[in-house]
């Protein structure tokens, strides 16, 4: 190989290495940070969730809805619609959970009844302790 060709190749390799060594830190810099493994529990009072009603709370940055169903008891579900991320609301008149963005309908247990949602709502762990409800 001639000296000029060698220098061209060397320059290309060094430039690509320099670029790659910049791109990796840039990628890590912009990547979302991992969620903390130590998740906090949130406590609400039972009286805050009347029979047939619902209560909204934030649990570990996730909007959650706690529903008090007369037959099924207390259910905690993520309010994030599995379609495109809008927040759902409980309609006590129909007993359904409805997404205001594209009309997805869910049961009180989070199962999809109709609409574009591809998956049920995520169930949140819930524990009844005396007069309190622990979520998370």
């Amino acid at each position, binding site marked *: 190989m001639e000296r000029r060709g060698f220098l061209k190749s060397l320059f290309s390799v060094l430039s690509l290495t320099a670029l790659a060594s910049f791109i990796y830190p840039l990628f890590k810099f912009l990547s979302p940070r991992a969620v903390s493994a130590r998740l906090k529990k949130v406590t609400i009072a039972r009286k805050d969730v009347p029979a047939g009603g619902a209560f*909204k709370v934030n649990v570990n940055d996730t909007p959650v809805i706690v529903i008090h169903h007369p037959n099924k008891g207390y259910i905690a579900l993520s309010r994030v619609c599995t379609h495109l991320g809008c927040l759902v609301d409980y309609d006590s008149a129909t007993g359904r959970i409805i997404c*205001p963005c594209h009309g997805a309908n869910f049961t009180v247990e989070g199962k999809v009844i109709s609409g574009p949602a*591809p998956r049920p709502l995520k169930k949140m762990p819930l524990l009844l302790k005396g007069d309190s409800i622990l979520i998370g």
Partner: protein
Amino acid sequence: MFERIYNWIDCRIGLTELIRKEFKEYYVPRDVSLWSTLGFVTLVGFLIQAITGIFLLTYYVPHPDHAFASILKIMNRVPYGWLFRTMHIVGANLLMIVLFLHIIFVFYRAGYKKPRELNWLTGAVLFVVILLFCITGYLLPWSQLSYWSTTIMTAIPTIIPGVGDYISRFIKGGEYVTGITLTRFFAFHVAFLPFILIVIAALHVFFIWRTGFSSLYDDPEICKKVVIYTGRPQYKDGKPFYPDFFNKYMLMMFVYLIAMFFIITFNPDMFLSEYAYVQADPLSTPLMIRPPWYFLAPYAMIRVIPNKFLGISIQLILLVLFLVWPFLDTGDEKNIRKRPILLGLFSVAIITWVVLTFLGRF
């Protein structure tokens, strides 16, 4: 005094000779029309966005606790703040209209055929960059409209199996749209994207300058028999760029400004919904949130096609086709009226886009 300044500059850089050679003695083809000025109008539109955006930067605060309040301050307390902010909003939408018309006209006139493939390629990349400007800028007011439109748009990549969730979280900087999303969108909107756009726009203008205006009477043998640059095509039977065509540039620029100020005066809320005036509430999704009108067609396509992944794949394929079109349509014929199949497909594409935009509103 101006003549002295002019002579001082002219002596040093040959301004008179430059104007004579590039403007007065450059003849544009006889078949160019007002439509050929749309590229210049797009450039003017973007300059207005840049200038008004820089003015807004002096008062805007990119933090979820202060962003909406800073916008309210600009609109209600800063002298003429309402004017610059409204120019920025109306300008963004008018820029998209002019941009779409420019793309349609260039396609219709086959302005992508050789030797102008690079003009089209840089123009297509500019189109994508401007869309990214629209996406990032939409979140900055931190209103209910901004927040929830961004939530929906950034959730669309989750449709892609495997990596979709990661891409969505990467764009947002986390699981949900938060202050992290706001600051990164702000950084992209005011720093990264302007830099990228200036570089690509400079290339785009350079290529246009080197290849000249596109005409249906261009020599189809160019770059075929002789594979070296033979200079910008000369159209001695055409019109001088200055003053004839330059006046058309100025006319269309003023038409654009008139349209902008007409909307600002009589219907400044034309492109905003009621939710643009309510601060973002991450715990309450309003009804009927929709993306801006220029994203309604892809939004409707995803909703209309039952398989969401197929819907997004079709759009990515269309985007790639759009970028590489000059390398697919390489025939010599430039007149689309002599190509009925292409004309038919082109018409169907435009009609489909209009119908999908209409459907996306509901």
